């Protein structure tokens, strides 16, 4: 039986006193990948930042596992079971890969750190022989793996990903999406903002299209890919591939 991991209800949030998203809603169920797509400036990243306490939430509510986190600070959310991976600058460049992973355990130590690390290295085998290398020396795709690995080290139930494929080569795009499916299958729910909308919708269990800070469309990934209006306006037109 699935239950709601995250329930964003009528959320208005933004920067300072300026609202960017208004009366937004979004839900993430257990073991789901939920994708937020939409044009630039639609408020996609603002939604993620609001959930993670990184900007000002003005009204509405954010419920994580039946508990309101509307007033919770970022430092309180990590121990509760939410991790986040920013779009850029998402690794500590002068720390080694292993140290980056370790940092993920400091705010919320997992039950068995060795087992968690082994599980993450199984997910991202590319990192196994780079543990002692500085994260800043890695390629974009490998950095993304370190960033997601760091977020997974605290054994979260939900991770928030802000454009995990930004700046990656098309070859790496598929690799990262494939890894995200594996992360989901390992029992971690994902709320993700993504510019590569078509590919993201293919792996999405559910998705929301945001326009001008408001919900415009929603449905399963497949439904949105089939929706003519969504295709024309946000997916570059053409038939779904």
């Amino acid at each position, binding site marked *: 039986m699935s239950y709601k991991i995250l329930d964003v209800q009528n959320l208005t949030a933004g920067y300072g006193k300026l609202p960017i998203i208004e009366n937004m809603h979004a839900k993430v169920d257990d073991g789901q990948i939920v994708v937020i797509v939409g044009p630039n400036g639609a408020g996609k990243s603002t939604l993620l930042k609001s959930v993670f306490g990184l900007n000002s939430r003005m009204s509405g509510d954010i419920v994580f596992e039946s508990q309101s986190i509307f007033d919770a600070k970022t430092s309180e959310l990590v121990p509760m079971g939410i991790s986040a991976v920013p779009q850029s600058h998402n690794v500590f460049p*002068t720390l080694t890969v292993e140290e980056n992973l370790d940092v*993920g355990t400091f705010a919320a130590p997992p039950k068995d750190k060795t087992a968690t690390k082994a599980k993450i290295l199984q997910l991202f085998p590319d990192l196994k022989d780079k543990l002692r290398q500085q994260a800043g020396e890695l390629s974009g795709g490998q950095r993304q793996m370190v960033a997601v690995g760091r977020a997974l080290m605290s054994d979260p139930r939900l991770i928030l990903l802000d454009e995990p494929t930004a700046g990656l080569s098309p070859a790496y795009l598929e690799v990262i999406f494939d890894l995200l499916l594996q992360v989901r299958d390992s029992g971690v729910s994902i709320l993700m903002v993504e510019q590569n909308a078509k590919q993201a919708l293919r792996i999405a269990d559910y998705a929301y299209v945001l326009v001008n800070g408001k919900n415009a469309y929603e449905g399963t990934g497949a439904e949105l890919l089939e929706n003519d209006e969504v295709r024309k306006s946000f997916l570059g037109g053409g038939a779904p591939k």
Partner: protein
Amino acid sequence: MMDFINFYLVPGITLGAIYALGAVGVSMIFGILRFAHFAHGDLMTVGAYFALSAVWLLGIPALAAIPIAVALTCLVALFADRAFYKPLRQLPTIYTVIASFGVALIFRSVVQLFWGTESQVYSVGFQKPIVLFDSLRIATRHIQIILATAGITLVLHWFLHHTQMGKTMRAVSDDPALASVAGLDPEKTIRWTWIIGAGLAAIAGVFVGLDTDVHTMMGWNLLLPMFAAALLGGIGKPLGAIAGGLIIGIAEEICTYPFFGESLISPSYKSAIAFVIMLLILIFRPRGLFKGRLL
């Protein structure tokens, strides 16, 4: 050759060790709190005077007074942070930089008020140097300062690379925004930065007193080479600051050695060396030797 080692190289390493210990704090505070702490030299002075009081009151040698000086200086630094810097944390850093000038004046004035403006020494009398291989003559205090700094460097390296707080400090120095996303506690990290920075400043202050004398301007006078050392090593790189301190200390001393029958520069200009090195680093290698943060 022996003259070079006895009178230039060893005193240079000693001076460099003192710069290094002060520069670690400057570099860490810049890396983690993001401001140039101009009161760091005077924090050193405060430490030296705490040790002086312990020497006077308890009759212990200056080296034995170091733990007392370190503990009291850490408390002073934590108080200064709470009272003067924390309220300014959300404002542009220039406010905190200017505040640190004010804190420097407060520290110096309080020291002058309680201990007077006269120069003091920890102990009087002549210490015979240790003679090695018949011609290598090293003052005991120089051996103590160099060995203690080497030990501190090893402990600091271990702390930064093998403890949770050490890794947290490096992570915050690398990227404070990401550290906050990772749920790291910034205030706890800041407290540890002050404890390490102030502790090492106090030790450096006692070493200056051991090497020369204790006076109220001692820390302020060392501020320029300490900043130069922090820049040379790379801002936010404590071990780089130690290397930077040693290089500047040695460079200042050996520049006065008569390599070609005459000193390269007059000893009265040797403090300009730090300034020249700082300028060259800022122009040609702004991230320093250990690739620290850009200013």
